């Protein structure tokens, strides 16, 4: 049996760790609340934007725009694929970062020339050791997502897409279904796909309202598409932020719980050791006294 002092030190160290994990749990849970509020605030804009593009495409099916160009003439292994990977800045969030990295690794196995745009310090560290191109000028943190940051990111992406430096753009982030279920997800940002806006084809005889575009269809799409992309990125950032803190919260909760159970076990051991020591001392004193008595 380990000696009393050792057990005591161990209990104290576990207690200290528990203090930290507990504090992190509290911080994460308050941040989850903030992030969830942000998520519900931005949802109408996000879905509104998606709905509008769908509606415009439905009413003006012949609309052409450079962002819908799939560039099918480029063979698969020459396609330049960009992916925005949203990881956390720090670890200690359970499987959160691991899941995103695993998803990106799967994407990297596919043919094509890959280029990574990484949001979050941890992912940057991980992929810098690997043999892939990373956009070095792309330094954004994931803390407190803002529309401004999303706009910056989308302008970089859109510019490279238009210049032909990227043919496909994906965003990898973690979606929060509910507080129990979070899932790493890959979404295609560019080129935009008509099918994703219009599930199912419309019956031909359906009445199509005529919509006037002012000043012109192209200028309207020129405004809507960048907004849609930056709105999409913003939504993903907020979603990832919420999932990160949710993951951290659960991880820290279980760490605190297991620290508690370790402390419980250790204190039983400690008490047993103490009891044994006392018993032994009493036996020693008694037998000593007995021996003295017999001497007389």
């Amino acid at each position, binding site marked *: 049996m380990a000696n009393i002092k050792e057990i005591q030190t161990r209990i104290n160290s576990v207690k200290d760790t528990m203090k930290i994990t507990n504090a992190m749990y509290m911080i994460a849970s308050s941040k989850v609340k903030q992030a969830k509020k*942000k998520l519900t*605030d*931005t949802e*109408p*804009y996000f879905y*509104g*934007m998606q709905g*509008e593009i769908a*509606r*415009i495409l439905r009413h003006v099916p012949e609309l052409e725009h450079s962002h819908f160009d799939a560039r099918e003439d480029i063979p698969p292994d020459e396609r330049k694929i960009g992916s925005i990977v949203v990881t956390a800045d720090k670890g200690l969030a359970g499987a959160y970062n691991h899941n995103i990295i695993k998803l990106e690794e799967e994407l990297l196995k596919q043919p094509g020339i890959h280029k990574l745009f990484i949001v979050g310090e941890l992912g940057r560290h991980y992929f810098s050791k690997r043999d892939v191109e990373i956009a070095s000028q792309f330094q954004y943190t994931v803390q407190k997502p803002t*529309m401004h940051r999303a*706009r*910056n990111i989308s*302008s*970089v992406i859109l*510019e490279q897409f238009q210049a032909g430096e990227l043919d496909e753009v994906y965003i990898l982030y973690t979606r929060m279904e509910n507080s129990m279920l979070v899932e790493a997800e890959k979404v295609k940002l560019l080129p935009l796909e008509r099918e994703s806006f219009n599930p199912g084809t419309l019956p031909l005889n359906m009445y199509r*309202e*005529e*919509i*006037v*575009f*002012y*000043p012109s269809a192209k*200028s*309207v799409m*020129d*405004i*809507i598409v960048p*907004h849609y992309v*930056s*709105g999409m990125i*913003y939504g993903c950032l907020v979603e990832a932020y919420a999932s990160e803190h949710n993951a951290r919260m659960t991880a820290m909760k279980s760490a605190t719980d297991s620290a508690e159970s370790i402390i419980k076990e250790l204190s039983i051991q400690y008490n047993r050791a103490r009891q044994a020591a006392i018993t032994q001392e009493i036996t020693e004193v008694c037998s000593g006294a007995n021996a003295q008595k017999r001497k007389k």
Partner: protein
Amino acid sequence: MDTFGLKIIASDKIFYEGRCRKLILPAPDGEIGILANHENAVIALGVGDARLEHEEGQWVEIALGEGFAEIVNNRVTILVDTAERPDEIDVHRAEEAKERAEERLRQKQSTQEYYQTQAALARAMNRLRISQRKK
């Protein structure tokens, strides 16, 4: 007078939802007025100020960011990245943003940075203009 349904959605909140009598919007080439039963249209919006009359003689002014308006079946939906009332505008912040943008415009930048700065400058100046008009 006829009214139409109006919904203004900014990226962080639903700014306005209700009936409206007259609406004046900032299109890229000038202002455009909308009354009830307007034909179906999608209108691109530049940075500028919108005015809406929700009741007889009561006009509300709004500072709008970039976005677009859609009119279908006598319902108007405006999706913009920012929408603010004149009294919500932080004049100091707008002034600082304006100075920052002007400072950056003087330096050499890539085309992309140039457009970004220009957009930032337009937003700041629009905010200042609207907040000053109120006084």
